[in-house]
C-alpha cells in the first residue's frame, strides 16, 4: 500500500522538530504504547496494544532511522509484528519551513501489511489507515498547541496524553486496552502503518 500525504503544523519548524524530539509526544501519537527501548541512536524496539473497533492486537516492533538530514528529513524503516499479522514500512518524512510560521510535513512511503490483517481485513485497511493518520495529526496538532502555549504563557500548559484527549477519544480509547491475556508474550507494535511511521518518527527524532 502506498501512503502519501502532508500536514501543516501551526508552528515553526524548530518547534515541530522539538516536539518530535519530546518523548512525551510519543505517548500522544502512539496510544497504547507499552514500552519503547532504545537500542542505539538509529534503532528502537517497542511494544503496544491496539484496538480499532472490533479489531485488537498486541504488536512488537522495530524502528530504524536512516538518511537523517537534520532538521529537514529522514527515512523511517518500521517493522511491527503480532498475532494479527505484521506491517512493514519504509517512509520518507520531510519538514518544510513555510516561512509564515507554519511547517509542512510531507510523507511518502510504502507499507506492506501481512498475515490475518491482510488476508481477512483488506476491506478495512484503507479507511482505517486514513482515519488513523488523520487522528494522529490531530493529536500532534494539539500537542504542538499545548507546547506553544506553554512557551508563551507563564504557567506551563500540560498536554494531556491522547488517551484522555477528548477529540481523539475514539482511537485512543480503543487503543488503550487490548489483550489482557496473552499480551505478555511477545508483543507488538503496530497494526496500521502510518501511525507507526509517524509515531516512530516522533520517537526517533526525539533521541
Amino acid at each position, binding site marked *: 500500500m502506498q501512503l502519501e500525504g502532508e500536514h501543516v503544523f501551526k508552528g515553526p519548524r524548530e518547534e515541530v522538530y522539538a516536539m518530535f524530539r519530546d518523548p512525551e509526544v510519543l505517548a500522544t501519537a502512539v496510544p497504547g504504547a507499552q514500552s519503547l527501548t532504545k537500542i542505539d541512536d538509529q534503532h528502537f524496539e517497542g511494544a503496544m496494544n491496539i484496538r480499532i473497533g472490533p479489531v485488537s492486537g498486541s504488536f512488537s516492533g522495530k524502528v530504524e532511522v536512516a538518511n537523517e538530514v537534520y532538521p529537514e528529513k529522514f527515512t523511517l524503516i518500521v517493522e511491527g509484528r503480532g*498475532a494479527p499479522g505484521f506491517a512493514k514500512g519504509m517512509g520518507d518524512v520531510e519538514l518544510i519551513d513555510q516561512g509564515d510560521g507554519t511547517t509542512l510535513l510531507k510523507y511518502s512511503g510504502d507499507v506492506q501489511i501481512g*498475515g490475518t490483517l491482510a*488476508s*481477512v481485513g483488506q476491506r478495512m485497511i484503507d479507511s482505517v489507515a486514513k482515519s488513523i493518520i488523520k487522528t494522529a495529526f490531530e493529536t500532534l496538532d494539539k500537542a504542538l498547541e499545548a507546547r506553544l502555549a506553554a512557551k508563551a504563557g507563564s504557567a506551563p500548559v500540560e498536554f494531556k496524553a491522547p488517551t484522555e484527549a477528548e477529540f481523539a477519544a475514539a482511537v485512543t480509547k480503543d487503543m488503550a486496552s487490548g489483550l489482557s491475556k496473552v499480551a505478555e508474550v*511477545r508483543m507488538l507494535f503496530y497494526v496500521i502503518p502510518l501511525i507507526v511511521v509517524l509515531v516512530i518518527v516522533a520517537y526517533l527524532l526525539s533521541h
Partner: protein
Amino acid sequence: MAGRVFGQSIPRNEDPYLLTGQAKFIDDIELPGMLHAAFYRSDYAHARIKKIDVSEARKLPGVIAVYTAEDFGEFVRPGPLQVPPPTAIKGSIFHARPLMPIAKDKVRYSGEPLAVIIAENRYIAEDAMDYIVAELEPLPAVTDLEKALEPGAPLVHEDLESNLAALVKQERGNYEEAAAKADVVIKKKIYVDRGAGAAMENRGLVVNWDDRAREMTIWATTQAPIPLRNSIATRLGLFEEQVRVITPFIGGGFGPKIMTSQPDDVLLPIIAMWLKRPIKWIEDRRENFLATTSERDQIHYAEIALTRDGIILGVKDVFYHNTGAYDPYGMTVPLNTQTHTVSCYEVPNFYTEIRMVFTNEYVVTPVRGAGRPEGVFVMERLLDYAAQELGMDPAEIRRRNLLRKERFPYPTGIIGQDFVEGVLDSGDYPETLRRVMEVIEYEKFRKEIQPQLRAQGKHKGIGIVCFTEGTAVGPYEGARVTVGANGKVTVATGISTQGQGHFTVFAQIAAEQLGVDVKDVNVITGDTGHFHWGAGTFASRGMGVAGTAVYNAAVKVRQKALQFGARFLGVSEDEVELCDGKVCVKGDPSRSMPLGEIALKANPTRGTIEPGVEPGLEATAYFGPPYGATGAGAVAMIVDVDPETMAVNIEKFAIVHDCGTVVNPLLLEGQVMGGVHMGIGNAFYEKIKYDENGQLLTASLMDYLIPQATDMPKEMIVEHLETPSPLNPLGMKGVGEAGAIPTPACFMQALEDALYEYRLQIDETPLNPSRLWELVQQAPKK
C-alpha cells in the same frame, strides 16, 4: 441405451442419510483420546527462517506437543512428486520441486507451516499460536509471472537459475507459415486469474495408529485415497496393508482434494505414530484459502490467423502459467490448457508454448476445469475479436470452423495431461451449436428482440461459445462386484466420492446387469480396506473409467450367476435368464433360484469346487482407456447490464452438452448446472488475489465471493446430445467440469454485446463491476 434402470432419472441412494444429518463427514468422527492439530503458518510469503521458539507454547496447559522442522528430522524432505514430469513431450524442461511438508530454512509462500501444535482441543491449539515466536527475515517476494522470469528476480528456489519451472512447446503444422498467408492476424494478451475450489467442506484428516495391531487408519477428505495410502506407507516404512485410508462423506472436492502431499498429509500420520493417540485436523476456512491449492492464473500471448471468410488458418499461444511456490502436481493444468485451446475447431496449424513459473504464492493444481477454461477462454476470445474484425456474427464464425462430424476420431497432435496424444473420439459439434442457438432463440434475439431493446436504450447482450472437455483419462480404475447371501449387491471401487452420486450411478450400472433394485446395491468408494487399486477422482473420469470397471465386473458376475444358476437348477446355461433378482429357466418362471441363494451355494463350506471356478458371486474387473473420451458442448447466455453501475443480471443460460451415453439424466443435469455455477463465479465473482508481496488478500468469504442464488441465471436450460464414445462399452464420457469451462468466455462475449456502443474487448477474467466500469472508461469509442 437406456434400460430398466440404466439411463433413468433415479433419485439417489445416499440422499436420505445426507438429508437427515445422519451422513458421517470427517469432522463427525470422534475417537477416544483424540487430540487436535493446528498449524502455525508463516505470515510472510518469502523469508529466511532464523529461529522458531516454541518453548513457551509447549508450556500452555492442554498443549501436548509442538513440532517444528527440526523435530521431524529426516522426514523433512520434499515430495513426493504426485504427477511425473512430461517426458513424453520431446524437448520439454521440468524442474521438479515438490512440496516441503514444513518450512525449513526458508518460507516460500504465506501460509507455509512453521510449526504443528497438538492439543486437547482446537481452541487450545489456536491459543498456543500466540506463544510461538518465529524470527523470520523477510525476502523480496515474486508474484508477477513475467517479472519472475527476468534476470535478477528473487528466486523462489535458489538452486535454480531462474524461476522457470517448466518449458513445453508443442506444434502441429506450421503456424508461422500459415500466418504469413493469412488475410487477418489478431494478437492479444489475455489474462485468466485465479479461483478456488472452495468446497463447502474444508479439508480434514483423522489419523489413528493402533500401536498393538501395528495398523494405521486414516479418514481423509481425499479424492485420491489409494495414492494417499501408498505415499503414507512408503514414508513411514510400513506395508501398504498396514495403512487403511477411508473417505467418509466428503463435502465437495472440485480438484484440490486430489493433493496427497500437503503438509497435513505428511506430518499428521508421523505425529499420530509418535504420540500413539488419534489426531484430528480440520482445516478452517481461512486456512483453506491460504493452504489448499487453487487454480487458473495464466497470461497468454495469443494469435489467430484467418482468411477473409473467417476460416482459421492457425493459432499461436505462448503462455505463462503460475505453479506457485512448488510444482507437486506436475504439469496437469497447463497441459490441459494446451489440449483445450483449439478445442472443437479445425485448426490446421497450432503452436503452443508453456512457460511455467515459480512464485511466492500457494501451489496451483487442478480446480474444476483444470486448465481447460483457460484454453477455451483464449480461443473463444480470439474468435470474438476475429468476428468483430471481419464484421461477422460470433455464432457464424464458430459454425464455419467447427470440426465436422465425419472427422472423428480426430488426432490433435498435442500430448495431454495423460501423456498420450489427444484424440477427439466422437461428437457432433455443429449440432450442439445449432441446438443451443435454437433453445436460446438466438436468431430471434439478434434480429427482433435486441434491436427493439437497443432502441429503448436497454443493454441486453447475448453470448455463444463452444467447448470440449477431455475426460475419462487413464491410467485405469477397477471395481469388485459381489452378490451377498441376502441377494443384495456390493460394488467396491477405488475412487472416492465428493457428491457426484457414485453411490447411485454405479448402482444403476450394476443393477441393470444383475436385475436387482438400485436400492439393493451398496456402493463403496474410497476405502482402501475394500478396494485398493486405482488412481482417484479427477479429470471427470469417475463415470467413464471407474463406471466402466463396474460395468465390466457386473457383466462377469452376471455370467457367473447364470452359470451357477443353471448348474444349481440343473439346466444348461442357455436355458436360463435373469429375472427380478433371480435366475429363471426361460419360459418356466416356476423354476428359479434367487441370486442370494446362488451366492450362498457358490461359496460352499464342504465338498469341492471345480478347477477354474472362482467361488462366490463375485468378480473384479479393471478398465483403462487408450486415451480420454472427449465431451463437448455449446452454451449461450443473455445478460442485462446497467450501464451506469455495471450491475449484471444473467437472465437466461442455455447449455447443450454431449457426454455420450447418459446414465442418470437427473444427476447429469445437476453436474452441468454445478459447473455453470463455478463458471459464473470465475467470470464475475471469484478471485484469489495476492498482493505484490505475496500476501493473500482474499482469505474469507467476505472477499472471496461464491455466487449466491440471486446471482445465478434466472432461467436455465440444459439439454443433451448423446454421441456414445467408442472408447468404452457403455459409450460414456465425463461431465464434471463441463459447465465451468465455457462460461467465462461466454459471459464476456455477452457483456461486450450488451455494452455494444463501447466496442469493448475484454481480455481478462474474472471481472467485477468496478473493473468493467474501468474498461468502459478506457474504451476507444463511446
